[in-house]
């Protein structure tokens, strides 16, 4: 057992910091009182961003994974953290969205001066730290059980966020989310138990070196995937998502839709592309792709039929998650070195990041509109765009990225995906991608049309809207658009460490 | 001597088992939660006591015997509390 192949690399300590820095924030939040928690956030957020940036630079410069062997106990006995290209990209996107969300939440979740400590602000900031820590642990973890703990951390941070407003519908949505997430965790855990029983290790790198032809492994991987799909809300396990994401306060919705569902998706990728690359059969990949296609069509059609803006955006999330699953049929050749698989691989990550930015921006914009009007009924939004031009611009830019209009990250992603379908000869996905784009165009322009309309009487604003918060939403929308300058080819960066 | 001890153990443990069975029958047959609790706790406390008593000669020392007796006492105490909690919940 002395194949000491893993050792801590020079920048490995950054990975520990990335996971533990927000944890320090959580622990301190319990003992400092009310108003100081937000001040604490103004330290935690920028430093966390710097840690993510430093990790990104370290991995890029080294051109290979950065590893930290925790406690110097090498796997299989111990746990290692590992940062490859996709994990640092994910870390960076997480850091950006979290920091902007923090800026956006300022004001909405600030303690009123002088008064006693209030519930919502304390809870919100701690949950924000927890989501950050959990996501970093998820993208850096390379041990299936360590990932389980990180997944639970993410769930326990996400569920209270849903019902932070304390209304009955949101509590109901949170409970439903909780039950789905719990079943998901249990199935994942069962799969992990089987894997340990078969290989005596849960370390992803070690697993990839051992053969996997047994049926037990396939059952285990399927169980884990089903569990994770329930957390990712892929059709047909999507029922919990719309009420949960629409019910949360705007900064919460932004994090849930942009980041939290991607966390469990990331683990699915780890299982099929890293832990057991030779297990992904043509049929399994097609099945996952088909579920993704169903999600795109169903989510988009349901989004078109929504009366309320936040629900529309939530259904749009279901559709956009669907695109991510084309990575299985289109990039399945990655393990065996098929050249064009790299394009689908790049496209999928581009889709993930551009959706993260665009959806966070869109939920923030919707939150501002709802705050200004006191409601978010689409039919009565007429002309609000004239009152809130920056918010409308944020909504429009992020909408364009979701539809896939150039130049935007969404366009590049969908273009590369189409390219991959052609190269792979799997034209049926191309049909769905084009159709999904058209449907997305339908629901986005439906809303934009309302926002831009010039009715006889423009609705009065119920509450003033802070310019600062509008700019926060806009900045994320601009990030989504800027991703469009990503070169339209397979990106080497996303292949670091594989 | 050892024969006598064996006989004692067999007698005590069997008597304990009889009490356990009686308690279980009560649990199944009695109509509502309070009476069931009544049957179960009374009979099982005596039953466990008899089993412990029967096993005492085999503990091989004072410390072992003390451990066994403390198991019985702790069970009595925790059983009483759990019964209280259940009865309160039902009320």
């Amino acid at each position: 057992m002395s194949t000491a192949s893993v050792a801590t690399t020079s920048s490995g300590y950054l990975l520990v910091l990335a996971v533990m820095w927000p944890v320090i924030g959580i622990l301190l939040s319990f003992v400092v009182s009310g108003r100081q928690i937000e001040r604490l956030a103004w330290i935690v957020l920028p430093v966390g961003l710097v840690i993510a940036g430093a990790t990104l630079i370290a991995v890029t410069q080294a051109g290979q994974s950065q590893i930290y062997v925790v406690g110097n106990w090498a796997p299989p006995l111990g746990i290692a953290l590992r940062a490859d290209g996709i994990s640092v990209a994910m870390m960076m996107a997480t850091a950006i969205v979290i920091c902007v969300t923090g800026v956006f939440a300022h004001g909405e979740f600030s303690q009123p001066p002088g008064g006693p400590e209030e519930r919502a602000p304390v809870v919100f900031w701690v949950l924000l730290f927890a989501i950050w820590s959990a996501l970093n642990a998820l993208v850096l973890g390379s041990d299936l059980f360590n990932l389980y703990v990180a997944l639970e951390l993410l769930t326990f941070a996400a569920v209270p966020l849903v019902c932070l407003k304390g209304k009955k519908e949101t509590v109901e949505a949170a409970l439903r989310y909780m039950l789905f997430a719990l079943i998901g965790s249990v199935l994942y855990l069962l799969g992990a138990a089987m894997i340990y029983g078969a290989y005596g290790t849960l370390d992803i790198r070690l697993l990839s070196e051992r053969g996997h032809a047994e049926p037990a492994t396939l059952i285990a991987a399927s169980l884990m995937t089903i569990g994770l799909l329930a957390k990712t809300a892929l059709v047909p396990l999507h029922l919990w998502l719309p009420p949960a994401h629409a019910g949360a306060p705007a900064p919460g919705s932004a994090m849930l839709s942009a980041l939290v569902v991607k966390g469990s998706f990331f683990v699915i990728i780890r299982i099929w592309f890293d832990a057991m690359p030779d297990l992904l059969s043509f049929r399994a990949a097609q099945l996952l792709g088909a579920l993704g296609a169903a999600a795109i069509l169903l989510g988009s059609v349901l989004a078109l039929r929504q009366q309320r803006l936040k629900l529309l955006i939530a259904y749009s999330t279901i559709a956009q998650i669907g695109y991510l699953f084309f990575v299985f049929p289109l990039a399945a050749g990655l393990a065996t070195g098929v050249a064009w698989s790299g394009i689908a691989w790049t496209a999928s990550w581009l889709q993930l990041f551009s959706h993260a930015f665009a959806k966070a921006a869109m939920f923030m914009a919707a939150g501002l509109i709802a705050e200004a009007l006191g409601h978010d009924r689409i039919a009565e939004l007429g002309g609000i765009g004239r009152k809130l031009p920056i918010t409308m611009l944020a909504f429009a830019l992020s909408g364009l990225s979701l539809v896939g209009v150039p130049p935007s990250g969404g366009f590049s992603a969908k273009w590369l995906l189409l390219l991959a379908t052609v190269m792979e000869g799997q034209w049926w996905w191309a049909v769905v991608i084009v159709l999904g784009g058209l449907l997305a165009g339908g629901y986005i322009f439906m809303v934009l049309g309302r926002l831009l309309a010039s009715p006889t009487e423009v609705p009065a604003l119920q509450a003033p809207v802070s310019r600062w918060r509008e700019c926060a939403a806009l900045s994320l929308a601009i990030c989504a658009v800027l991703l469009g300058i990503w070169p339209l080819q397979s990106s080497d960066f996303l292949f670091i460490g594989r | 001597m050892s024969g006598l001890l064996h006989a004692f153990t067999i007698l005590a443990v069997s008597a304990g088992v009889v009490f356990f069975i009686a308690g279980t029958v009560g649990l199944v047959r009695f109509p509502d939660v309070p009476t069931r609790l009544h049957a179960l706790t009374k009979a099982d406390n005596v039953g466990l006591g008899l089993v412990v008593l029967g096993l005492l000669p085999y503990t091989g020392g004072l410390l072992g015997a003390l451990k066994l007796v403390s198991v019985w006492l702790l069970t009595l105490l925790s059983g009483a509390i759990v019964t209280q909690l259940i009865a309160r919940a039902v009320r």
Partner: protein
Amino acid sequence: MALVFDIGIVSLLIAIGAWMIMARDTLVAVIIFVVYGLLMSIAWVRLSAVDVALTEAAIGSGITGMLLLSAAARLRQTEGAGARPSFPVCVAAGSLCALISAGLAGVVLLPADVAPTLAPLAVANLADTGLENPVAGVLFAYRALDTLLEKVVLLLALLGVWSLGSDRAWGGAPALGAYVPPNDILVFFAQVLPPIGIVFAAYMTWTGASHPGGAFQGGTVLAVMWLLVMMAGVARAPPISSTKVRWLLVAGPALFLAVGFLGFVIAAGFLAYPVDYAKALIVLIEIALALSIGVTLALLAAGPPERTLQP
């Protein structure tokens, strides 16, 4: 003979599990669950996993039972809410679940020729940790990161529970045991048992380094004792804004994290211990963790704040 015993336990477990699912009354189902948990601890002993057996008895059946029991009592009126699905749906669900069970049983029958194990590796490295209980070695040395993150999960769950109180009650106390008359029999128990329980918890935590036991089990016993005291109204539940409570909650994880970072300086890295002081440090962490776990679990079971603070 041993196999006969096991067959008995297994059939009882399955029968009781089925009864729990089928029982009409939720309260009855909860009581069955407590019994199920105790039987499950015996099963763990039969599987040579005494540490797990203790955890299962303390958490799985003990404190979870207390939590569910009080919840079931409070929800008695809602018993009729929602109807069971129709018979065909039940049959379909039943067949699906039977299929899954059969598949799992198939996996059980498909073991590798030589079952893989990390036991030799865990034992071989145990000397470096100074511990004698290999399970403690896994929890506090080899996989310390999991244990640390799990402590954060616990704290987060508690914050989630607190967040479900009303805005007005924030900073107040859980309503546990507010209505117990002073000469109630439960009050007597709540005065007699805790001293024994605290000694027991301390022993469990201390012995965990070399024998089955440890911070989890000891902390849970502490939690149950405190819950009992609160339920009997002997000591009121503390307000969640209490500084003392907040410090107790984070003391364990904070010490664990601090020692973890100290590892960068005095040992081979994060969460590594210097060989000479490994056992002392781990026992110190376990004691702090047992306290924090005790407070966290008890407050988790006590529920969200409901009583506002008296000015």
